[in-house]
């Protein structure tokens, strides 16, 4: 092993002497990468778009002039064209960078900045996609921002109205709650009234039936009364009957008077509640027929009429009795008075019938009204729930939601690398390009120099393993490229302040792996292609192929699936990813597994291929 190492060391020293013995080689090695990065740094230091010429075509420039004035900036000059064809031709001739057509119906409100209708059509040369990307980004930003601001303002106004509506709905909801409370109270009172009425009815009915019995009796006694004229002896019976009637009427009067107040109160209260209820129904527009509700009003006047009638009847009875008793004579009582008396009694009975009916009707009405009130409460509850739901839905919108509505998916693009200069951003790809091209070409040249060297044949005669020469050449290449890369890193660090040394261990490993892959590729081509010219051309094509089969021109993601899969295995692309992750994101070895495995696999395969290529070359001699 020691012998092997010593021989390897002497081979490397010999190789390096050969490489560095030439001044041109030294200059190329040192100045090459330095110039490369300086040129790129000079080219990519700027970050702003400038000197852009935009062709514009419109049938009516008056309409779009204000917009054009907004678009005209120090970076962008606007050129107006009379025809669309001339506008596009100017772009084809590279006089302008793009042509923008404002359609005939395009409207632009100077005051609000609102683009009312119409369309803006961008014509661009998509073969210059890199430039166009920047220009369209620039224009999109200018035009889209204005448009979004306008839409936002309008939407905010709509949401403000929605807010007002929600406030009103909330007030209506409170009123509805109050109404529900009122209806519930009314229902309770109606129930109490019903109980009261039923009690009244229970008390009234026996007396009423008794009076009705007396009426029958009077009717029966009417014949006797008719005979009263003829037979006085019957007068006493009539008088008794009349007194009985008067007594009953007293009892009835007392009863009516006892109940009148509560009945009147309840009825009045009930009628007031019903009136309020009808008002609310009208206010909220509940689906209850008003005419039906109005029928529910209770009559209170009938009580008074009945009392008056009873009183009058009593007076009449008293007068009749007095007359009978006073006169004591059947003759004094005229048949006409008796008939009147009987009529009055009939009237009383009619009134009592009315009271009887009124009580029945009132109870029936209450029975009918209670389910309706229950239904009304249910409707109010339903309505309240609907209003609740509506309020909840509309409450989600406020003016701050307008932006969300204008741009339904609220996106914000935030570059994780901040405002790095382009030279920083392209540094990983610059690094991998330098490694790719230099490694392939240099290793190929070194191998070609070795195998075309007159001394090469002597290597085969040496009593040592041929692998040592392969490894010697590989290490020589690695050292030379390492020097170049170190120069490149120094320039990047000192001239462009790219922090490459804080992550140097990771970066060094990545550079080592990527360089090894391309050095081995260059060596293989050197061994298997015998002529210098063919080998160098092959290397150039291969490097170009690797370069093009990456994401330099178009992203891998737009390639066909198989091509994308293969491109993702391209060591240039793998190396670029590796450098980007290390330089920008300082990702540790553990998270670089895929890249390290891919490069490691390449190295294993290429190492084997290099040995086979060496022996293939040897067998030709």
């Amino acid at each position: 092993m020691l012998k092997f190492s010593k021989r390897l060391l002497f081979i490397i020293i010999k190789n390096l002497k050969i490489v560095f013995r030439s001044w041109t080689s030294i200059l190329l090695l040192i100045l090459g990468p330095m110039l490369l990065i300086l040129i790129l740094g000079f080219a990519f230091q700027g970050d702003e778009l400038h000197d852009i010429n935009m062709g514009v075509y419109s049938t009516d420039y008056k309409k779009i002039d204000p917009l054009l004035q907004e678009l005209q900036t120090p970076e962008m000059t606007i050129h107006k064209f009379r025809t669309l064809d001339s506008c596009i031709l100017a772009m084809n001739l590279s006089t302008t960078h793009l042509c923008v057509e404002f359609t005939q119906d395009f409207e632009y409100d100077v005051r609000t900045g609102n683009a009312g209708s119409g369309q803006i059509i961008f014509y661009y040369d998509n073969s210059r996609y890199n430039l166009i990307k920047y220009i369209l980004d620039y224009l999109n930003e200018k035009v889209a921002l204005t448009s979004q601001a306008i839409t936002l303002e309008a939407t905010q106004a709509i949401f403000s109205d929605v807010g007002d509506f929600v406030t009103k709905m909330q007030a209506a909801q409170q009123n509805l709650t109050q109404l529900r409370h009122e209806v519930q109270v009314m229902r309770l009172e109606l129930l109490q009234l019903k109980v009261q009425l039923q009690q009244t009815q229970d008390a009234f009915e026996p007396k009423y039936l008794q009076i009705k019995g007396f009426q029958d009796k009077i009717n029966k006694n009417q014949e006797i009364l008719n005979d009263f004229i003829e037979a006085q002896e019957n007068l006493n019976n009539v008088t008794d009957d009349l007194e009985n009637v008067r007594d009953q009427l007293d009892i009835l009067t007392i009863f009516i008077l006892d109940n009148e107040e509560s009945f009147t109160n309840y009825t009045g209260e009930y009628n007031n509640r019903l009136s309020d209820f009808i008002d609310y129904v009208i206010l909220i527009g509940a689906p209850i027929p008003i005419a039906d509700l109005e029928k529910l009003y209770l009559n209170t006047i009938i009580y008074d009429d009945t009392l008056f009638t009873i009183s009058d009847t009593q007076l009449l009875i008293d007068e009749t009795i007095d007359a009978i008793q006073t006169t004591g004579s059947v003759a004094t009582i005229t048949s006409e008075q008796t008939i009147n008396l009987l009529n009055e009694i009939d009237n009383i009975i009619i009134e009592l019938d009315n009271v009887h009916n009124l009580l029945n009707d009132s109870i029936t009405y209450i029975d009918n009204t209670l389910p309706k009130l229950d239904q009304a409460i249910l409707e109010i509850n339903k309505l309240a729930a609907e209003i609740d739901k509506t309020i909840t839905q509309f409450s989600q919108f406020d003016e701050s939601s307008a932006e969300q509505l204008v741009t339904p998916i609220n996106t914000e693009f935030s570059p994780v690398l901040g405002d790095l200069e382009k030279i920083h951003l392209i540094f990983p790809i610059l690094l991998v390009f330098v490694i790719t091209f230099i490694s392939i070409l240099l290793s190929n040249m070194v191998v070609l120099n070795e195998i075309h060297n007159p001394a090469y044949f002597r290597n085969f005669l040496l009593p040592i393993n041929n692998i040592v020469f392969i490894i010697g050449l590989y290490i020589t290449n690695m050292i030379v490229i390492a020097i170049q890369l170190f120069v490149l890193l120094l320039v990047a660090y000192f001239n462009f302040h790219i922090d490459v040394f804080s992550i140097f261990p990771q970066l060094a490993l990545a550079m080592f792996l990527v360089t090894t892959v391309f050095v081995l590729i260059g060596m293989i081509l050197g061994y298997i292609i015998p002529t210098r010219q063919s080998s160098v051309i092959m290397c150039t094509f291969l490097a170009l192929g690797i370069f093009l089969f990456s994401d330099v021109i178009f992203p891998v993601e737009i390639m066909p699936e198989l091509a994308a899969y293969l491109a993702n295995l391209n060591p240039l692309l793998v190396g670029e990813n590796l450098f980007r992750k290390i330089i920008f994101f300082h990702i540790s070895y553990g998270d670089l597994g895929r890249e390290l495995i891919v490069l490691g696999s390449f190295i294993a395969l290429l190492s084997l291929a290099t040995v086979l290529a060496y022996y293939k070359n040897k067998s030709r001699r």
Partner: protein
Amino acid sequence: MDPLISFQGVHKGFGKVKVIKNLNMDLYEKEIYGFIGKSGAGKTTLLRILIGYHPISSGKIIYKGQDVTKKQHIIRKLVGFCTQENSFYPELTIKENLRYYGRMYDLPGKKLKEQVNHLLELTDLKKSKNSLAKKVSGGMKRRLDFAISLIHDPEILILDEPTTGLDPIIRGNIWKLIEQIRDDGKTIIVTSHLLDFIEKHCDRVGILNHGRLLKAESPNKLSKLYPKAKNFTEVFKAIVKKDN
């Protein structure tokens, strides 16, 4: 006297083509052995077998009584080889070339230094030792090539057309050097188309034709076989003609 190295019934073929057929040959210490033959006779293949570059297809190679047929690393240490064209690094100096190859043969520092100095003196390159190899004269390059071939102190030095492309004066000097090397204790095998020099400087000459060794004698003995021949070239032609 025992031979230094013996080739016994050696055959070498590449595929179906048999290039060397039944070669039986002995080499003795401190002799200059010349191989002559027409183009395609198998000289270069034979030399490559001798230097251990090509393994033989069949037969035996015996070195000082030891079978080294399959021990190419022994053969490689045993022989030094000069190709028709110079075989050194033009970008290195004469001394660097010598030191580099000395290192490849694992010569220790002191011995390497002594050997380099000895060879520089032997080949008369001491004054130019620090010159880049590509910048010295054709004769010096040839001598450097000899020196490199001798850096590991081999017992046998094989020279393939050592004077090709050199002017007559330098050619004479090279042959003198070959004799000096022989006198220095080496066995030398040499091929050349310049048969006068072969006749003049070689102790024995082997004539190859179609891969077979027709004769292996001293030039005098060969000349005596064809007394009517005016020179050694005619002797060679007669021997080959007889074989054809």
